[in-house]
């Protein structure tokens, strides 16, 4: 099942020396790309070509996972698409176990910066998941301990504690029908001693001493 967008029409590709033009040349070119992808597990070319290759690579892997290597049709397809025949072995013995239970796409595609000066082509990287190379995109850092996030987290905690306290206070007081000090909407200041903003690290009381 394909979890990425498929264009309604295939892209046309430029003809290359030795590969021919038109739809036939396009498929021959894509064969080379798919073979390269399976071999090196990462492909860097124009984004359009990466996108075109992606569909075929994913489909091939999905067929291999679904049908296994005993299926004639799948073997024929693998034989056609993988120009280097040792990759057929890799497809069935390495990639199929890797992607068998993966509930996601087997490939990832990234856009990378256009080189300037240059012809202005939009470049992309297509890679198989689980490849041994360093990640294309930097891993997002954990910002939980950043100063502003700490402040917001503490403010949120305090707010929820306050709400809980208000709720329990409302539950404790039997409802008499009076409208004085409605619990939910009242802006009661929390008891500062009970609040959790204690400076627990203070060893020396009060002096501006060494940490």
């Amino acid at each position, binding site marked *: 099942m394909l979890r990425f967008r498929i264009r309604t029409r295939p892209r046309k590709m430029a003809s290359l020396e030795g590969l021919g033009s038109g*739809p036939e040349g396009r498929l021959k070119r894509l064969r080379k790309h798919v073979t390269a992808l399976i071999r090196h597990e990462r492909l860097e070319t124009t984004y359009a070509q990466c996108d075109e290759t992606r569909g075929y690579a994913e489909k091939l892997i999905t067929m291999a996972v679904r049908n296994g290597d005993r299926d004639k049709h799948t073997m024929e397809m693998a034989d056609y698409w993988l120009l280097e025949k040792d990759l057929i072995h890799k497809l069935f013995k390495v990639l199929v176990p890797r992607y068998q239970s993966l509930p996601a796409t087997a490939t990832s595609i990234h856009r990378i910066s256009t080189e300037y000066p240059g012809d202005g082509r939009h470049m992309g990287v297509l890679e198989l998941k689980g490849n041994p190379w360093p990640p294309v995109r930097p891993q997002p850092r954990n910002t939980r301990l950043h100063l502003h996030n700490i402040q917001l987290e503490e403010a949120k905690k305090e707010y929820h504690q306050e709400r809980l306290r208000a709720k329990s206070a409302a539950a404790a007081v039997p409802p008499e029908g009076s409208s004085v000090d409605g619990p939910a909407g009242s802006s009661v200041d929390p008891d500062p001693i009970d609040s959790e903003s204690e400076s627990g690290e203070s060893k020396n009381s009060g002096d501006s001493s060494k940490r």
Partner: protein
Amino acid sequence: MALLAHVARGCSRIPKLQLEAALSVRFQSTLSHNDTKARRARELRPRRNYLLNDEVEQHRKSLLQQSPEVEEIPVQQAEANVPRDFRHVMPEFLPDPNPLYRDRVTEKLERMDMYRRRTCIDIPEFYVGSIMAVTMADHHAPGKQSRFVGICIQRSGTGLRADFTLRNVIDGQGVEVRFDMYGASLQKIEVLKLEQRLDDELFYLRDAAQEYSTIPFDFEPVPLPKGATVPVNSTKVKLNPRPWLERWERHELKGVEDLNLPEKKYRRARQVAKPWERWDLMKRQRESINEDEEESIMKETYMETESTRRARGRQKASLKKTR
């Protein structure tokens, strides 16, 4: 009119809003400030009522889905053992793969209508090459209905617009009738002989001898043993001499005899042939829908039509023999 006269004179004392309002009554959206080329193109572009693969994936991965408050709605698909080739038995239930025409809600509603229709009239399992008899309501015919017998040469359309074409030769004249499968005027559809041919479409019968298309109107139904697979009729049809309606040498027909054409015809056929399409995985993908969606639709169809099939005392859907 007075306002326009002002404009014609180039008067600038009229408030701008008033002017625009007045003119826009006459000239729709020519003075609208956001009447851009992009906006017009967007309005003319056909709208898509369908979430594409990556959009569904985004929703699947979104943080909202990971909230503990999200309840998983249990899917009511029971463990029905749907035969793998069931999609060939009732192919009209699968939607048109073109994403522009896809709309899951519309498709679901159509399928519901189709199930309901199937409770009224028995639409049996048939394939291209089966001999069928259709009784249709006809206001002008004696008895107010007309019956047509023929060999099914084509099956197309999706949803409620599914159709099939029957061919027969009546009084030396080839006749083809296309019937809407879910049309209200169909009163009875009988499959007199359930079988398959070697091709998906039998249009070459138009260029073949009439014997191949003649089916007597009193054709006796041929019963099949229970649980049998659909037989494949491997008749090789002999075509009439050229001229033909189509260049049959270019069609990769399996159900015709050797065409006996000059070599250059075959050479030209090889030149215009597209053998690479056999390997084009994405072309197949574009001609069908996602496999999981296909599976779920077929499961639903199987379960909904199961009761109808049983009620009619029919055999269980026999597996199509894969060619």
